[in-house]
């Protein structure tokens, strides 16, 4: 598990370095995600430089363990929001209406477009 954390942090660190140096508008951890994906795709070929944990299922088990409680990791930020609801100020109603309606529209349009094209590319009802 320690080895897996080292791999996760190393990918994140490399991602932060790439994000800062290149100025691309992508968060470091998201670049780290892509790097870990690449490591997993090529791990047979580069196994000599990887810790054993990345090839024996420990990586998968640790990642799923961490992600099972992904919600927990948003709690500190959530507490901050509850304490800062005052920033909504006098536009509170407008902001809540815009947030709710635009989120619902975005959800429905995304899922509708996805389904329409997934059916077509599958050549029939999915």
């Amino acid at each position, binding site marked *: 598990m320690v080895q897996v954390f080292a791999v996760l942090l190393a990918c994140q660190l490399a991602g932060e370095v790439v994000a800062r140096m290149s100025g691309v508008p992508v968060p470091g951890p998201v670049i780290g995600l892509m790097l870990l994906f690449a490591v997993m795709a090529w791990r047979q070929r580069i196994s000599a430089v990887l810790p054993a944990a990345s090839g024996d299922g420990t990586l998968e088990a640790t990642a799923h363990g961490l992600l099972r409680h992904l*919600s927990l990791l*948003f709690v*500190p930020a959530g507490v901050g929001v509850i304490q800062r609801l005052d920033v909504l100020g006098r536009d509170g109603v407008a902001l809540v209406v815009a947030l709710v309606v635009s989120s619902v529209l975005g959800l429905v349009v995304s899922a509708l477009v996805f389904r329409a094209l997934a059916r077509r590319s599958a050549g029939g009802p999915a």
Partner: protein
Amino acid sequence: MTRDPFALWVYLAERPLLWLTVTLVAYGLADRLSQAARRHPLANPVLIAAAMIGAVLLGLGVPYDRYFDGAQFVHFLLGPATVALAVPLYENRHAVRRALVPMAAALVAGSVVTLVSAVLILMAFGVSPAVMASMAPKSVTAAIAMAVSEGMGGDPALTAVLVILTGIFGAMVGLPLLGALGLGEARAAGFAVGIAAHGIGTARALQFSPEAGAFAAIAMALNAVLTALLAPPLFRWLMGQG
């Protein structure tokens, strides 16, 4: 040795241990409540835990900064957890590769509709351009949304609040709404929740199924990039029309 309870309280309240423990215990309780409610969408563990902790801090008069000294250890794990999303993504890579065309189209359509509708509604309410700029990138992860908002003349603090509220709302409403509309298929629904509700929605999609979680994760990552590139010109164009 401390015998005075007040001195003990002052000691503990200023150290990370107490607030880290409170965060984990509150989440444990909230997660149990959510399970007892059979993962009912309204019993969102982030919302319940944050409300409980918020009430405790308010009741005891503890400032957020002091709470965060302890909670930062949990907050820090968001980075490695985001990297770890590569694992469900890798495990579902064949399903993802087969869905490249639907993903690209749904990404652009969903992202643009969300941003444009939010700005148009705020225009109808007559709010200031700075508030509109703060709202426009709310569906993506906080770091990107705050930078985009600031670049367009918005208030990053307001954006951070809207990002978290959007995530909680999307996580609560997304899957049940899409299910009720007959759009609950794991790939489409997961992808939609990732576009509309970033990491908090992805956390919910992962509970639903690993496949939905994988599609939410890739949607979240792609929408962060697209919003960073597209939001500023789209926002300028909308302002020019108004």
